[in-house]
């Protein structure tokens, strides 16, 4: 009986576009790569839905500092609809705001609260609510009371799993203490951003961790954490490794090692970016397949609908896993690299 219900639901979802199909026939051809890239990209308003040519979206504040030399107004606060005249959304530059200064197109200083920025702040608020409410619980209890259950217990379990199994075991008993808060913050920031990014509508859905700027920032933080506090042993291993002298006289090994210093965080950056971006892209593509199918005809529409629904279910479940795994891998590799910078003297 239950199965029957779910089959009915599936069929209803599959036939749903049939009614939409009827009144959208006059639309132009679908450009799937453009749609996907547009959804992956940042934007100046939070698009929720389009219905019969009307776009429903949340306007977001645009904050720009004019690049022109005239001493008039420098800072501009507005929304996408009330953009001052000298600014425009540049089509060649992914709809980013550009300014006309004496016939030239210049990018002004753009500190707008874009979709990604808002998404980041939503995640920040979420993290604060989650962890400060948990911290509040701990303030009210002492170590003699029972271990927490429910939500606080789950958070504690997750935190301690990362803290003990990843951070402590990767960096080592002696040096892990100062890095634990940073790595935990990174883990939960990535995890929450990834998960919120999977929600299809407003409070989530922005492709934040699939944006190279974000992963660059996170990887750069890890780069600083590795190299600012690396010990003598670490630097010696880079510039004077234990290899035959002719490899050091012409600095082959030091060059390779120094290159490695930068490739490690670079790999972190690319890994997180590529995984999250690809996940979003695949989900968006399968969603587009539905529209593509209906634009080709009812038969294609029904068949591809079923197919893409199944694939979307599968991809979303997979992305849940990937969201966790990528956060975990980023944290673990950061911890391992930091641990490598704190190696004790080799026991030869």
């Amino acid at each position, binding site marked *: 009986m239950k199965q029957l219900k779910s089959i009915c639901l599936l069929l209803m979802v599959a036939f749903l576009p049939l009614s939409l199909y009827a009144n959208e026939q006059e639309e132009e051809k679908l450009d799937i790569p453009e749609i996907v890239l547009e959804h992956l990209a940042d934007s100046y308003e939070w698009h929720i839905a389009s219905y019969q040519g009307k776009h429903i979206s949340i306007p977001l504040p645009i904050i720009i500092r004019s690049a022109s030399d005239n001493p008039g107004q420098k800072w501009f606060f507005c929304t996408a609809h009330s953009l001052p005249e000298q600014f425009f959304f540049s089509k060649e530059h992914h709809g*980013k705001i550009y300014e006309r200064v004496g016939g030239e197109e210049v990018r002004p200083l753009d500190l707008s609260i874009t979709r990604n920025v808002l998404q980041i702040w939503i995640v*920040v608020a979420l993290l604060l609510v989650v962890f400060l409410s948990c911290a509040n619980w701990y303030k009210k209890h002492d170590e003699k009371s029972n271990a927490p259950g429910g939500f606080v217990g789950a958070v504690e379990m997750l935190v301690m799993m990362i803290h003990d199994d990843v951070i402590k075991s990767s960096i080592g008993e002696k040096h892990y203490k100062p890095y634990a808060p940073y790595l935990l913050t990174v883990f939960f920031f990535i995890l929450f951003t990834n998960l919120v990014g999977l929600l299809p509508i407003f409070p989530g859905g922005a492709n934040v961790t699939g944006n*190279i700027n974000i992963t660059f920032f996170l990887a750069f933080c890890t780069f600083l954490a590795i190299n600012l506090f690396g010990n003598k042993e670490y630097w010696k291993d880079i510039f004077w490794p234990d290899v035959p002298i002719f490899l050091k006289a012409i600095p082959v090994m030091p060059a390779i090692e120094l290159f490695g210093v930068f490739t490690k965080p670079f790999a972190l950056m690319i890994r997180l970016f590529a995984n999250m971006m690809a996940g979003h892209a695949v989900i968006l593509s399968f969603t587009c397949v539905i529209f593509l199918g209906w634009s080709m005809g009812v038969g294609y529409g029904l068949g591809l609908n079923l197919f893409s629904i199944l694939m979307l279910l599968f991809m979303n479940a997979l992305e849940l896993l990937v969201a966790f795994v990528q956060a975990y891998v980023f944290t673990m590799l950061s911890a391992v690299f930091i641990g490598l910078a704190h190696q004790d003297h080799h026991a030869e």
Partner: protein
Amino acid sequence: MDFSKLPAILTPDLGLLFWMLLAFAVIFFCLAKYGFPAITNMVEERKKYIDESLLKAHEASERLENIKQEGEAILQEARDRQAQILKEAAETRDAIVEQAQQKARAEGARLLEDARVAIDQEKKAAIADIRQQVAALSVGIAEKVLKQSLKDDKAQMDLIDRMLDDVSTDK
């Protein structure tokens, strides 16, 4: 290299970086100060507390074991002591009984001796008495006999002969 020709997600964006830096600084500061230490410290303290409790429990059970052994030892000692006391008591009793018996025996012997001595004395007294009486009697008789029969010489002579005979035969 013109980055702006890359896809949007690969384009460096100063605004996004700026906000990311700000947001991450805020979240890092808040969580590193108020969020995670509360949890990890509490877990650490709880772990310590549990370890201590375990240690205490071990100690307590050890002590309990010791106490049990001590109790057993005390019980054993008490039992030994009881047996010893019982033994001693029995010995004392036996000794007392023995002593009393001896005393009784001695007393009996003494009484017997006393009785014998008294009897002897009585006997002696009685014999002496009898002797006296016999002597008196015989003197009396002798007097009478003498008074009667010693009227003539002949009779006197007979008597003297007889007596002499008696004495000689007595010898």
